[in-house]
């Protein structure tokens, strides 16, 4: 019978793995063809290095999440998992931040720099990118909860009073 603590941790890790996978798939399959005054173009995620970085970062975290799901409970590698969780949280934060900065310009434009918003022409692309960012956000929050939970479990023995 699995202990409830282990079940909760496993469930959280599965959610984190699922959401990073969803973020990768949503962002990678987002492309749309459109016409802008008889000029046809295609919007893909490879147009911006920020979206490419988002896909790569979330792919790395997906692979890591998949591998950690199969780690047996008692092994000493869990300390390394704690450190790697922190590193991958940082990676996720930086990828979401970068993708969101570019997506914000794509949605609202930047009139001072004469950058027009593109979401008007490629609404489906924009919606899918938004979905990928939301999935990335949920993954980030799940990983933060996991990190805090791991630290709490790790520190609890230190606070036990005799």
């Amino acid at each position, binding site marked *: 019978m699995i202990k409830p603590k282990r079940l909760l941790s496993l469930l959280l890790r599965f959610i984190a793995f699922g959401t990073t996978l969803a973020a990768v798939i949503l962002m990678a399959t987002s492309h749309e063809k459109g016409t802008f005054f008889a000029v046809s173009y295609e919007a893909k995620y490879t147009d911006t290095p920020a979206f490419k970085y988002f896909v790569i970062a979330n792919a790395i975290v997906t692979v890591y999440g998949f591998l950690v799901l199969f780690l047996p409970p008692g092994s000493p590698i869990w300390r390394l998992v704690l450190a790697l969780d*922190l590193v991958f949280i940082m990676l996720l934060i930086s990828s979401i931040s970068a993708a969101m900065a*570019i997506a914000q310009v794509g949605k609202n434009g930047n009139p*001072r720099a004469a950058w027009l918003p593109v979401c008007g022409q490629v609404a489906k692309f924009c919606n899918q990118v938004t979905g990928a960012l939301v999935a990335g956000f949920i993954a980030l929050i799940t990983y933060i909860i996991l*990190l805090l939970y791991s630290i709490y479990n790790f520190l609890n023995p230190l606070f036990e009073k005799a």
Partner: protein
Amino acid sequence: MGLQNEEKLELGCSSSQPRSKKWVLLTVRVLAFLATATATLVMALNKETKTLVVAMVGSTPIKVTLTAKFQHTPAFVFFVIANGMASFHNLMMIMVELFGQKLDYKGLRLAMIAILDMTTVALISGGASAATFMAEVGKNGNSHARWNKICDKFETFCDRGGVAIIASSAGLILMLIITAMSIFKLLNKPKSVSS
């Protein structure tokens, strides 16, 4: 006699080791504070005004004055705020280290320092990455979205922005080292004997 001297030497070594570690941590914190403060100031004072000739009417040129400020881009605003908060955090930690050795909250002092350091690392990394990618679009433009590059016209603005981003990245690496040291301190803290 010989054994007694050895014992005294060993005790002397162990008592001086945490002190040198404390000074190492303090020095790295000061460096990180300087890096993030530099990034904040350089980006916050980043402004360039340029007069461009737009068209010629007869023989008089029509000039347009354009200003590039950091407030125009939300990514840079986030960058300034994140680095400002990081410098404030480092300053507070330095003050607590120097003057507030007795400050504690139910024995959670080291844990709180470690967690706050982690959140600051997260904050700086978010700010630096957003600013980096916005600067990349500004430098290279984006042909697919028809966004023209602006760095060929506003060179000083771009240069200063680049310096701020590099300073923030250096601050990020230093903060990572500090976080590792704080977590190390937390996990190795001597277990206090409960009364």
